[in-house]
């Protein structure tokens, strides 16, 4: 009942200055709207840019690097212990970067509970033969189903179907950049040459566009079996094992474990792509800073209006106190006013923010480098709405706190005698 009475008085004071109240609430609405829109847009963009790389990147990649023998003959000598050895002459062996015992490793990884999926891959350095000249390139031999499942490969195939790659023997999905240079269409046959001079005909079944132009000028995709055939290797020949985990944060630790367990190089996504995380976090930080600045400005607006209201309502405060309302009650009245402005303004801000970001999400955004994106990217993360709501309440409470304190300290004697 007491809360009821305080609410009634607050509402009466609010409606008495309806215009100011609306302006104050609008300040909050505007800032929350912009906060939500800014963050949704920025997060959408971040996700897009990150996914550009992250979707196509395994969480852990197992591979063999061509390295000189780590134990040079001089090391075996015990004549000069602790001395630095300059004599190094055993060069890398002539061997392909094959992962030995790949079938057993894949089986072991598939049984690991941390692993979401495993996709084996070959890379073959080739020349695409275009008339008289050769273009350098790389053909990735992939397991089409695993690639689709783990790296949404099908999204990047802009023409043709990934299944055709699996079903047509000796087929290839060409990078769009290469395809343009070679003037080929789906169904055409092309010739490639490997680094050791083998020529091989392949049928084009599709085009691939990653969004990264340099990559599209070089890369193409074939099945594992096709690349093994090009190289003349057995079916166990695999140069890379790509691993996707359930929890990406475990990647560095697991990479170290796999390195020692399988005796291959293992690189985790955090190490390989450190720059993306830095970029994302800085962009997010900037948008939070702008959003919170907007809210603080709105808070000052509320502070001003409440201060004005208190000066105007000095008489009312005095008489409320004279007739038995305590400082606490007066404080509660003005805090209620501030929070009402904050809640109404904030709620509208969340709705408008959702609306505005949805609107931006409808604006066409055509860029040749991002084939899968047709409109501006928007992230509808509920986290932003929760932060927006909490911040609108906190800032309005703080904006109301000091004026309310002042109102609660009004001495009725001063006011009444001053008349």
């Amino acid at each position, binding site marked *: *009942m*007491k809360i009821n*009475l305080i609410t009634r*008085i607050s509402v*009466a*004071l609010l*409606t*008495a200055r309806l215009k100011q109240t609306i302006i104050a609430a609008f300040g909050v609405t505007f800032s929350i709207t912009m906060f939500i829109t800014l963050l949704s847009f920025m997060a959408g963009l971040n996700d897009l840019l990150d996914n550009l790389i992250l979707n196509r990147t395994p969480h852990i990649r197992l591979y063999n690097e061509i390295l000189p023998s780590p134990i040079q003959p001089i090391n075996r000598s015990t004549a000069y212990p602790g001395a630095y050895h300059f004599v190094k002459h055993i060069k890398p062996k002539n061997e392909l970067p094959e992962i030995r015992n790949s079938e057993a490793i894949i089986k072991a990884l598939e049984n690991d509970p941390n692993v979401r999926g495993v996709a084996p891959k070959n890379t073959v350095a080739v020349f695409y033969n275009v008339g008289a000249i050769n273009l350098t390139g790389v053909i990735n031999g992939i397991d089409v189903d695993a690639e689709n499942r783990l790296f949404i490969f099908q999204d990047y195939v802009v023409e043709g179907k990934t299944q055709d790659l699996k079903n047509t023997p000796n087929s290839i999905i060409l990078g769009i950049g290469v395809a343009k240079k070679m003037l080929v269409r789906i169904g055409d046959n092309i010739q490639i040459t490997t680094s050791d001079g083998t020529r091989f005909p392949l049928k084009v079944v599709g085009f691939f566009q990653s969004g990264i132009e340099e990559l599209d000028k070089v890369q193409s995709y074939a099945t594992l079996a096709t690349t093994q055939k090009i190289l003349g290797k057995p079916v166990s020949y695999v140069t890379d094992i790509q691993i996707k985990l359930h929890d990406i944060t475990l990647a560095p630790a697991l990479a170290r474990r796999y390195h020692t367990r399988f005796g291959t190089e293992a690189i985790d996504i955090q190490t390989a792509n450190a720059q993306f995380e830095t970029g994302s976090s800085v962009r997010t930080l900037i948008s939070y800073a702008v959003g919170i600045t907007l809210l603080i400005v709105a808070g000052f607006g509320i502070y001003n209006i409440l201060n004005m209201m208190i000066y105007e309502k000095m*008489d*009312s405060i*005095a*008489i*409320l*106190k*004279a*007739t*038995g*309302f*305590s*400082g*606490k*009650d007066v404080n509660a009245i003005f805090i209620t006013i501030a929070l009402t402005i904050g809640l109404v303004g904030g709620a509208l801000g969340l709705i408008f923010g959702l609306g505005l970001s949805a609107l931006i999400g409808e604006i066409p955004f055509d860029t040749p480098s991002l084939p899968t994106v047709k409109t501006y990217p928007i992230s509808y993360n509920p986290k932003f709405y929760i932060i927006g709501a909490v911040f609108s309440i906190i800032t309005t409470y703080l904006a109301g706190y000091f004026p309310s304190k002042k109102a609660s300290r009004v*001495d*009725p*004697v001063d006011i*009444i*005698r001053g*008349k």
Partner: protein
Amino acid sequence: MAKHVWIRKKGECYFLSVLNMEKKVIEAIGISKSFHDPITVKVLTDVSFAIHAGEFVSVVGKSGCGKSTLLYILSTMDTSYEGELLLDGVSMKNKKDAELARVRNEKIGFVFQFHYLLNEFNNLHNVMLPGLKYEKLTPKEVEHHAYEKLKILGIEKEALKYPNQLSGGQKQRVAIARALINDPLIIMGDEPTGNLDKKNSDVVFHIFKELAEEYQQSLLIVTHDLDFAANTQRTITMEDGRIQKGPTNNLTA
């Protein structure tokens, strides 16, 4: 408690009121007060007096004699004083802000020179506010009560209007109804007729008199209107922060 009895027959009331005269609703014992800004000025010196239940007392004096200051001390709104103030036999010293607010709400009704009605509420709600704050009665009962008070003051027709639709005299009557809503121990007035013309002053005075005589309401009114003071039961005259002469009983004088 005894108040309900007073409302009945006059003869009976008289007898009872004599008995009740012993009960002091408010008592000031040696109250002194100084202002220290910018230099120390003593505004009240050793003021002592008591008001009994059902008394209609006026305080007069030249402006600056400290009569308003005294009233605000008696009303518990001003707490920086020396001496002792007893309201209904309870000391007001060392009480917290919230406790004093409670005392004002329950035991004191106020009428000021200016009406101090809240323009955001209609007259009925203005009267109801202290009653709702008291929380002794349900809002429905408070409303009923407020109507009754407005009826006593003859302005029940204006209940649903807003204060700015009333004349000065009517506003002051609404303010008096508000002072009465919690059946206070005492009504305090600071120049309640100071802002009114002669006709309205008389109306307000007669209301006070009626409250005192018919409802045995204790009243303490600060005024500079000597005619007004002369018609009250007792007048306290102040000069330079002291009670100048012993309390005079106007009716026997």
